[in-house]
């Protein structure tokens, strides 16, 4: 079976700094994979390379067999990649519903008219904020803004969803809601790559994890294996703990 998302030797250099060093791994359709690593290990940079926010220096990225490395962000979005941002990005002058309509209109399927309205409402229902459709996003609470961002990513009807610390900054109750929400998405068969620091969430959501340290891949396997891996423990806690 060929992979849905396939990275091969993806590299990003900022001048003398090797931020992402020859990352290679695959995601199968329907998989939910955690992307782990200490702060500064290059996780968000890797997400930016996949989504086209930054062009990779070298390497290739394939979505369903199509090369997307080096394409513009909008072309990659239309190829079926959607993402959320580490720091929430809402469209402040549009209503919640209009925010979610945008990727439905400009995404892979280019819907228009009543169809974007229907898709946007379905996605808002999926994340549980359908009742806020007519509100302005600036008036929403933090978790609802995060839900809005997730609904917007879903409205693109993506093949692969990239979540960059989507659960960060939530209180314990909200975290449980957030985990339940992503688990619900998982059951729809969507493929997700999620950057996460909260181990509780990683254990609950990701059967498999990929771990980065200093830009390079140091582990790739089931979550249990990876979290017990001495290299991973050393990366997080230092050599003496391994």
């Amino acid at each position, binding site marked *: 079976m060929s992979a849905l998302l396939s990275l091969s030797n993806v590299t990003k250099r900022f001048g003398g700094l090797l931020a992402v060093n020859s990352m290679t791994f695959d995601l199968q359709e329907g998989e939910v994979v955690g992307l782990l690593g200490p702060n500064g290990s290059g996780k968000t940079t890797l997400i930016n390379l996949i989504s086209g926010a930054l062009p990779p220096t070298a390497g290739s990225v394939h979505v369903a067999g199509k090369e997307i490395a080096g394409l513009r962000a909008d072309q990659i979005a239309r190829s079926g990649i959607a993402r959320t941002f580490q720091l929430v*990005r809402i469209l402040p*002058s549009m209503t919640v519903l*209009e925010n979610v309509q945008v990727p439905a209109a400009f995404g892979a399927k280019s819907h228009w008219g009543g169809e974007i309205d229907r898709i946007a409402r379905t996605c808002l229902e999926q994340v549980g904020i359908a009742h806020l459709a007519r509100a302005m996003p600036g008036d929403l609470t933090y978790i609802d803004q995060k839900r809005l961002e997730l609904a917007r990513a879903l409205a693109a009807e993506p093949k692969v969803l990239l979540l960059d610390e989507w659960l960060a900054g939530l209180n314990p109750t909200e975290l449980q809601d957030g985990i339940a929400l992503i688990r619900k998405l998982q059951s729809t068969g969507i493929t997700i790559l999620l950057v996460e620091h909260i181990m509780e969430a990683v254990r609950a959501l990701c059967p498999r994890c990929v771990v980065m340290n200093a830009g390079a891949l140091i582990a790739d396997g089931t979550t249990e294996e990876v979290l017990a891996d001495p290299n991973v423990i050393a990366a997080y806690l230092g050599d003496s703990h391994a």
Partner: protein
Amino acid sequence: MVQKLLKPLLIMGGGAGLAAAPVVLSEYALGFMVSVMSYVTLATAWAMFSGPTRYISLATVAFYGTGAYTVAVLSETLPYPLVLLTALAIGVVLAAFVGMATLRLAGIYFVVFSFGLAELVRQLITWFEVNVTGTLGRYIFLPFETQHIYWQLLALAGFTIGLGAWIRRTRLGLAPKVIGDDEVVAAHSGIALARTKVMLFVVSAALMTLAGAIQSPRWVYIEPGIVFNPTVSFLTVIMALLGGAGRLWGPTLGVIPLMVLFEWLSANFPDHFSILLGALFILIVFLLPNGVLSALEGWMKSAKGQSNGKTIEEAQT
């Protein structure tokens, strides 16, 4: 239901009334209406691009002047419709070229560049006229009376507003709003940033070029200093902002009171016109940052005592 019928009736009635205006208006009043129609076109076209994207352009007069100059150069060699088409083509090419070169600039850099562009075009034409053709000024002799120019500009203003209304219903209308809010989100939602911005900039500039071309016979004698007067760019911006650059009818509503005021100011305070104009700009930006229409909406809401006004979706027209 009644409102749905009322609106096209109002627009048709208003259009017919305006088209009949030359019958009743004096030559002076008609001249004033020519300026109004010209600025309705300029401000509405300006708001098409600059309103949603929030790229403040001071290049209006670069296109307006180019249109006027094209007519001055070609009016005796080509039939009038072809002259207009040529002006339109030149405006489109200039805008596409400028758009592709500059729309990567954001914020203040774009403002400064767009202002510089108008000066650049003026200086280039001056240089060309002095060094190559050897005549700086040109005469335009076209068999048009004021009402003919008025009707053409009325049609162009109507077309501009109609086009604005149509664009608002399309993806090309939604995309710049997203770009204005957050370019990163726009790109990651599948919006081709450069293509969207260049397309809107070209459409807006083409309309401005036509406005200049149609209005040019009014001057009879033109030279670069007259048709590339930067005040045109500033007035366009302030009119659009006064009415509200985010609304279809906003710019039009900004044009009318300001034109009346300018007319009065230049008649009564000819020596202090620029100072008063500057003070007015400052007042508008401070007091009505989102334009008269949204301010009115805000006042009406607070009068009704509704506090959750923010949830009201922006009016389509």
